């Protein structure tokens, strides 16, 4: 792929991955808020409602980005596979991509998942219905599964340990990134100003527990992927611009984990106070900013060739 196509592909991938993560994060946030306490019972002066956080609108924006990137996907695949950047040439290859390649088959599965999510959003409203929630979860899982099946992890076929591991890795990454982004940018700054800090602590506790579990899955899937895929190629980490980008990403990830640990042990592990609520807001905002950096560099790395 040419430079500008690669750049566009990376940009679209970053937007799609971020939107997917925030979709997952918004659903989790909504669920935790319902369980964390009745926000509508707060005094009128600082009244915050779940609907007031506009998580539903955020989800709809994320879904729109996912659909647009999905529609553009066959063209990017055609460009990547053919090595051409000529629009007419790659556009003519789209029918071949959709009918004769593995990516084409997965594109249809992705269409089904996105159609399900769109249908749920358009016709399900904002009601909290368990069945509708599970439909949404199923749609999101299907998107994660097709992403795993599109990746290198599926080289030995479907339903292999590598592919399942990648699927879990995708889910865990989205839960981690999405939960932190929504908490840091949308929910926690609003909860931190409430008189009743227990709602924030309850929300933070659920966030921390879920993120810890997600990181646990990242450990298992990460160790497996490392064991099966690393073949002594570590030296290129330091010898190429691409490797240096990867090291930068690792630094971002380590920073995010460190900030998460600080939130957990300096704030959530101690009694709730307004000062700690302010500290937690700052830490989570910082973690969210770092997480955006992780997603950006991930999109760059996932769509470039290490040898290139």
């Amino acid at each position, binding site marked *: 792929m040419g430079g500008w196509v690669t750049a566009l592909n990376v940009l679209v991938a970053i937007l799609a991955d971020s939107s997917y993560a925030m979709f997952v994060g918004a659903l989790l946030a909504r669920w935790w808020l*319902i*369980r*964390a*306490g*009745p926000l509508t*019972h707060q005094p009128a002066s600082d009244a915050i409602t779940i609907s007031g956080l506009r998580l539903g609108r955020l989800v709809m924006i994320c879904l729109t980005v996912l659909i647009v990137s999905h529609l553009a996907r066959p063209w990017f*695949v055609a460009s*990547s*596979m*053919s*090595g051409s950047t000529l629009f007419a040439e790659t556009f003519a290859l789209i029918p*071949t991509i959709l009918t004769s*390649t*593995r*990516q084409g088959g997965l594109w249809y599965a992705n269409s089904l998942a996105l159609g399900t999510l769109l249908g749920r959003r358009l016709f399900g409203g904002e009601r909290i219905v368990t069945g509708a929630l599970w439909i949404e979860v199923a749609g999101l899982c299907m998107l994660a599964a097709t992403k795993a099946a*599109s*990746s*290198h*992890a*599926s*080289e030995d076929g479907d339903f292999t340990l590598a592919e399942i591991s990648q699927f879990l*890795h995708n889910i865990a990454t989205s839960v981690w990134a999405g939960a932190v982004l929504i908490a840091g940018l949308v929910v926690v700054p609003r909860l931190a100003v409430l008189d009743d800090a*227990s*709602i924030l*602590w*309850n929300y933070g*506790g659920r966030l921390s527990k879920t993120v810890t579990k997600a*990181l*646990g899955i*990242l*450990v298992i*899937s*990460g*160790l497996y*992927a*490392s064991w*099966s*895929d*690393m*073949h002594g*190629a*570590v030296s290129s*980490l330091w010898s190429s611009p691409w490797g240096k980008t*990867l090291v930068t*990403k*690792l630094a971002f*990830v*380590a920073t995010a*984990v*460190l900030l998460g*640990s600080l939130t957990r*042990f300096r704030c959530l*592990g*101690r*009694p709730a106070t307004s000062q700690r609520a302010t500290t937690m807001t700052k830490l989570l905002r910082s973690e969210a900013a770092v997480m955006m950096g992780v997603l950006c560099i991930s999109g760059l*790395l*996932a769509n470039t*060739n*290490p*040898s290139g």
Partner: protein
Amino acid sequence: MRAVFTAAIRRSRVSVPLEYTERSMIAQKGLQMSLILFRNFSEQGLQYARSIAILLALVAAVFGHTAAVSMTPAADSTVSAPANVTIKFSGALEPKFSTITVTNAEGHVVNKEASAVGSDHKVMTVPLPSLPAGVYTVHWVGVSTDTHRSQGDYKFTVE
């Protein structure tokens, strides 16, 4: 919905404060406090372990790209006229976009038939006519099922 909110009130106003109250009481007892510290230390250790695992996973995720792992005839080898050129790849290939062409020293394509990918999607072969002695160049393009495109050239000599 009212029941859900009532239950949520109970959970948020009773269970959470109690958890911290219990922690405070335990913390006043020296021996048990050391247990909490040990647990926190273990959790921090786990966080570090997770960080390392994430780093390893990220490294692994990006090093896994399909590449040519063996060629027949081998690169820079001298052989009697081969019936075909076969290249084995580390990952599955897209047959529609993966190709092998063989050219002679003048740069003319010598293979009459198109290359084909085997049923396991990891081996690509191109049949060759009877080749006269000389130096030949194999040009290969391997497009993996995850869309990444790799390519290469190598030479072999027919004696």
